[in-house]
């Protein structure tokens, strides 16, 4: 059966051009980049070429690009590294309620170590308020970490405006741009951002390779200590093959940024229109305009997300949900709760994220089948418009809390 992959926000297949670029580093080019002999120098060279490709993609200097083992590591490094290094100045951090877990759980860990974190709320579209940010800034604030674009609902935060506010106060600003890369332009010369997290596997590169952009001169502790790799800032023998792949993927993403974005946006709008028109009792999550080109996120009342995903999977479609049931926890997505959805509704969410190879037929197929799937699951559900269940009652009853 033909598969229709609509979970590009979770991960993407490796582009054949990227694979071709990385293969020589798997079949040969195995030298340790720190070694001085031929094999080592060749590996070093390919890493530096990739560093330039990444730097170019975000308009940075190559000396500001540090490779990590994932986007999560980049987030952890940025936040812990800044916190540890600058704690003498203050122990207050500002972030948001809709960050990726890599930021959120890192902040929570720092709270246990004696740091204080203010989590800015967001409005019903997922946007933070600049006023809230200004009010949250204190004398002892050392770091602001606000994501570029949200991975679940696709909302794009006003990073440039945030940067201006933060810079004026002399505070370090980190943004998790893992979802932004390849989807919206990132220009470090234009933005007042000090640290940026990136990850290759969201832009048709391999999993397990990330980047932390560190603006020159920003004081930061290492997260992974050891050898002198990455200009003594990130230890560990370099993952040459995946670094080369990330470089190529970033180059391609940059070259085709606009064309890919238009393609995804067009299909996304067809998808959103189709779902909203053909299926009753559905809402679109995230900002209606200010959102990632490939992101569509819906809540279908009265049904639960995992059963939608399973039903889609059976007919060949891959999507994701903010339902608790897909995460192994019983709480639905913190992002959907943060934009004000009741837990019961949040459980019924479906995220479909479009990629550069998605076609109009794919979208039409999905819309048509979703109509049937949603209807079937709703028939199976004990709740509906005539027989709604008051969340509050159930929550108070607390019968099934875990």
């Amino acid at each position, binding site marked *: 059966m033909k598969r229709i992959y609509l979970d590009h926000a979770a991960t993407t297949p490796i582009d054949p051009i990227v694979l071709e670029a990385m293969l020589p580093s798997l079949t040969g080019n195995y030298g340790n980049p720190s070694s001085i002999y031929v094999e080592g120098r060749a590996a070093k060279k390919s890493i530096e070429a990739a560093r330039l490709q990444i730097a170019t993609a975000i308009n940075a200097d190559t000396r500001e690009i540090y490779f990590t083992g994932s986007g999560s590591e980049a987030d952890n490094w940025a936040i812990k590294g800044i916190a540890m290094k600058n704690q003498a100045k203050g122990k207050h951090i500002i972030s948001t309620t809709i960050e990726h877990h890599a930021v959120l759980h890192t902040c929570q860990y720092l709270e246990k170590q004696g740091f204080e974190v203010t989590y800015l709320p967001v409005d019903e579209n997922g946007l933070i308020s600049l006023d809230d940010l200004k009010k949250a800034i204190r004398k002892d604030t050392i770091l602001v970490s606000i994501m570029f674009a949200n991975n679940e609902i696709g909302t794009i935060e006003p990073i440039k405006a945030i940067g201006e506010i933060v810079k004026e106060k002399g505070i370090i600003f980190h943004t998790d741009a893992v979802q932004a890369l390849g989807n919206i332009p990132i220009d470090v010369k234009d933005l007042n951002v000090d640290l940026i997290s990136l990850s290759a596997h969201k832009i048709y590169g391999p999993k397990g390779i990330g980047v932390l952009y560190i603006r020159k001169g920003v004081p930061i502790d290492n997260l992974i200590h050891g050898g002198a790799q990455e200009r003594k800032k990130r230890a560990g023998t370099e993952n040459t093959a995946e670094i080369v792949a990330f470089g190529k993927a970033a180059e391609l993403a940059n070259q085709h940024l606009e064309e890919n974005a238009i393609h995804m946006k067009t299909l996304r709008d067809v998808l959103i229109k189709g779902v909203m028109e053909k299926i009753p009792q559905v809402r679109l999550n995230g900002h209606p305009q200010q959102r990632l080109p490939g992101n569509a996120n819906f809540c279908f009342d009265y049904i639960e997300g995992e059963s939608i995903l399973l039903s889609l999977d059976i007919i060949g479609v891959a999507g994701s949900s903010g339902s*608790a049931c897909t995460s192994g926890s019983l709480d639905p997505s913190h992002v959907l709760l943060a934009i004000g959805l*009741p837990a019961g509704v949040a459980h019924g969410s479906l995220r479909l994220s479009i990629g550069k190879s998605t076609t109009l037929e794919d979208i039409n197929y999905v819309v048509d089948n979703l109509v049937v799937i949603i209807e079937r699951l709703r028939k199976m559900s004990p709740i509906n418009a005539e027989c709604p269940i008051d969340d509050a009652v159930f929550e108070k009853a607390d019968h099934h809390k*875990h």
Partner: protein
Amino acid sequence: MEYTDVVMENFTCPKHVGEVEGANGIGQVGSPACGDIMKIFLKINDDDIIEDASFKTFGCGAAVASSSMATDMIIGKSIEEAAKLTNSDVVDALGGLPDVKIHCSVLAAEAIQAAIEDYKKNKKK
């Protein structure tokens, strides 16, 4: 997370979906906030034998499959026997459930017990 074939079968073609006509014992457990609600309908005859059973479920694949399997397992049984149905019985019949989904089978057993209680209460009146 990986579902067994039996779970997938019971999810894609669940048995006994809907509201059995003449149901005289109805039980509902769970909450949408937790992501599962199970409602069980029992039609019990004068000898306290479950003649028919059905369900409506808001929940994940495991919740639907557990409902389907559990209702199927109690049809034809006395309410005494049915009340003894444990969540492990359901899990076993499904060929296993992922760890994080065990609670779905618990819900199914609880919903049946709630339906039987409801029947008993109705009978007393």
